[in-house]
């Protein structure tokens, strides 16, 4: 019953979002998010749920996408009239077939062997995508026009909002599908094999077969995401299945948190925002993304959702209030430190001319600009060092309880 309410709420949010963010940019970002969420969740079936570190998951996204574009082209040339709403499914089936083939030899072992094969297959495909021009379209990729598809109950998908509802429907179905998969025997066994493949064998299960099933399901949903990409952008290029795309989805899942089902959703939303907003303001956004990733790996091994989950114990005990003051006290110097460091980075890569940052004009050639930012950074750093112990102490107090549950109480 509670689950039903949650899913209904999720559907409602999906329907209301385009009414709130109704600008062209807003809808375009929502579409990107829908695609990214499906892709990131499918990746987490491998890494978080199944313990398979893949460096080539974009292969299934890309292949699904390319097939979807070709399916749209079939409609365009009036060979076969495929309704646009079914195009993502075509992508999914293509991702599934590719995963069945590649999984058949790559899932026997997890760990380094699996990771290396995934990397190799990814490189192989990225290279052949520039050679097999008839399918991949070479440097310029392949494009199609989605509006040739037969109208769906009068909707011709000429506007982005119409595409949003198509994407949202597939997002809902995919999230539900993947969630349910994690609750089946095959899904639970994937966790068991992740934790201890050897023991799973003595319980009657071939670890390789368990991984293979997760791998196929992940390929299917990655293909759906690729199909949604094809519908949304009407073009796919070699860049969609290369290592950079595979890296992006890894970042989304990891930063969001691998341990909780909704972790990758959070990561996908956040990184889509960073990608599409930040690159309007700075050319350094890839650097910031990398920094966020490194910091997450170092300090938040369970990602952002892991950090949120840490607050469960204080919350259950009604001691969340204890944290408000120390959090605020740490957040202020923390934010100042981050902002001044960003200022320094941005300043360092401007060549000439004044550079207005947070409403203040800075000049790359002037020592005053540099020293001022540096001084602010140092002061903020010192202040942060002084407020952190207070936060740690507050954490200890807020999450202290019977010694049995101490595992929840690690300070972030």
């Amino acid at each position, binding site marked *: 019953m509670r689950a039903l309410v949650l899913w209904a709420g999720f559907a409602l949010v999906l329907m209301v979002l385009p009414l709130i963010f109704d600008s062209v940019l807003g809808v375009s970002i929502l579409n990107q998010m829908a695609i990214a969420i499906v892709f990131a969740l499918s990746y987490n079936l491998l890494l978080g749920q199944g313990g398979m570190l893949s460096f080539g998951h974009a292969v299934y996204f890309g292949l699904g996408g390319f097939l979807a574009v070709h399916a749209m082209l079939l409609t365009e040339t009036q060979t076969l009239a495929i309704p646009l709403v079914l195009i993502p499914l075509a992508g999914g089936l293509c991702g599934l077939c590719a995963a069945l083939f590649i999984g058949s030899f790559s899932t026997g072992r997890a760990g380094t062997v699996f990771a290396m094969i995934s990397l190799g297959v990814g490189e192989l495909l990225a290279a052949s995508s520039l050679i097999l021009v008839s399918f991949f379209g070479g440097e310029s990729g392949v494009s199609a026009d989605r509006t040739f598809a037969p109208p769906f109950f009068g909707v011709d998908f000429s506007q982005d909002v119409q595409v949003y509802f198509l994407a949202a429907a597939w997002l809902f179905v995919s999230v539900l599908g993947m969630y349910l998969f994690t609750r089946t025997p095959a899904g639970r066994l994937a966790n068991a094999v992740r934790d201890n493949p050897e023991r799973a064998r003595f319980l009657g*299960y071939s670890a390789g077969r368990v991984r293979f099933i997760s791998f196929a399901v992940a390929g299917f949903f990655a293909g759906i995401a690729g199909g949604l990409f094809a519908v949304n952008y009407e073009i796919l290029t070699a860049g969609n299945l290369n290592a950079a795309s595979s890296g992006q989805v890894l970042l989304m899942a990891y930063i969001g948190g691998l341990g909780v089902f909704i972790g990758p959703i959070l990561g996908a939303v956040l990184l889509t925002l960073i990608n599409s907003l930040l690159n309007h303001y700075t050319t350094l956004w890839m650097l910031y993304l990398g920094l966020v990733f490194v910091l997450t790996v170092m300090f938040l091994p369970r990602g952002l959702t892991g950090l949120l989950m840490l607050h469960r114990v204080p919350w259950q005990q009604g001691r969340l209030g204890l944290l408000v003051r120390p959090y605020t006290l740490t957040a202020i110097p923390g934010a100042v430190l981050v902002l001044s460091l960003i200022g320094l980075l941005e300043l360092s890569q401007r060549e000439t001319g004044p550079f207005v940052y947070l409403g203040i004009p800075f000049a790359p050639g002037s020592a005053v600009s540099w020293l001022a930012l540096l001084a602010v950074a140092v002061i903020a750093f010192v202040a942060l060092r002084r407020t952190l112990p207070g936060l740690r102490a507050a954490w200890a107090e807020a999450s202290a309880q019977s010694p049995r549950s101490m595992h929840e109480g690690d300070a972030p």
Partner: protein
Amino acid sequence: MSVLQLDNVSKSFGNSAILRNVHLRIEPGERHAIIGPNGAGKSTLFHLISGRQQVSAGRILFKGEAIHTLPPHEIARRGLARSFQVSSLFAQLSVFENLRCALLWPLGYGYSFWHLLSREKALNARTESLLDELGLWQRRDVPAGELAYAEQRALELGLAIASSAELILLDEPVAGMNATEARQALALIRRVTAGKTLVVVEHDMTVVFDIADRISVLVQGELIASDTPAAIRRNARVQEAYLGVPVPAGGQHA
């Protein structure tokens, strides 16, 4: 027909022979203990039977069929379950999920992705009764990796007995438990293995003579005797090789 039959089984790692020409027969319903000093090769013997390691020579028959060439999961499916001397659990899964995973194959779920676990009433009821029997009811939602030592041992035992396999191999199931825990675990082992065949490696002699109706003695890779407890007590070679030296109290063995 014997449930388990080892013919001339040998195992060596590189140049060192760990097991030499082991012959062993275990009859249906038997409670068989394997004793022997540290490093005698008892765990290795279990690894060979369960398919974790390959025999160097000889053959192993389970219910009359050769199993020494099969992978572990196929041996397990034929009805052979085992526990490990060092607990081998699914660390991030809860106690409940650990036990449920052990029941999936025996209850015929295979690799199903069309059943929802929460809907499977019989499966969940059996998992819960197992939890109860193991004394882990209170800890059902705790990740296995966070259990105390004795609780991990109980869960380890649970994973082995969950499937109600015909042949159960237990590698030092009560080592490291205190007297009360060991007594409870033994009562449990006796209860859940009733009507099944049990092979247990154990160090504590009182436990061994209490639980077993046959005992095999392994010394430096050789099976020097396999007989009833009374006969083993009288056996001169055994006394010389093993019982003569002070037997460590159960619990010290690593």
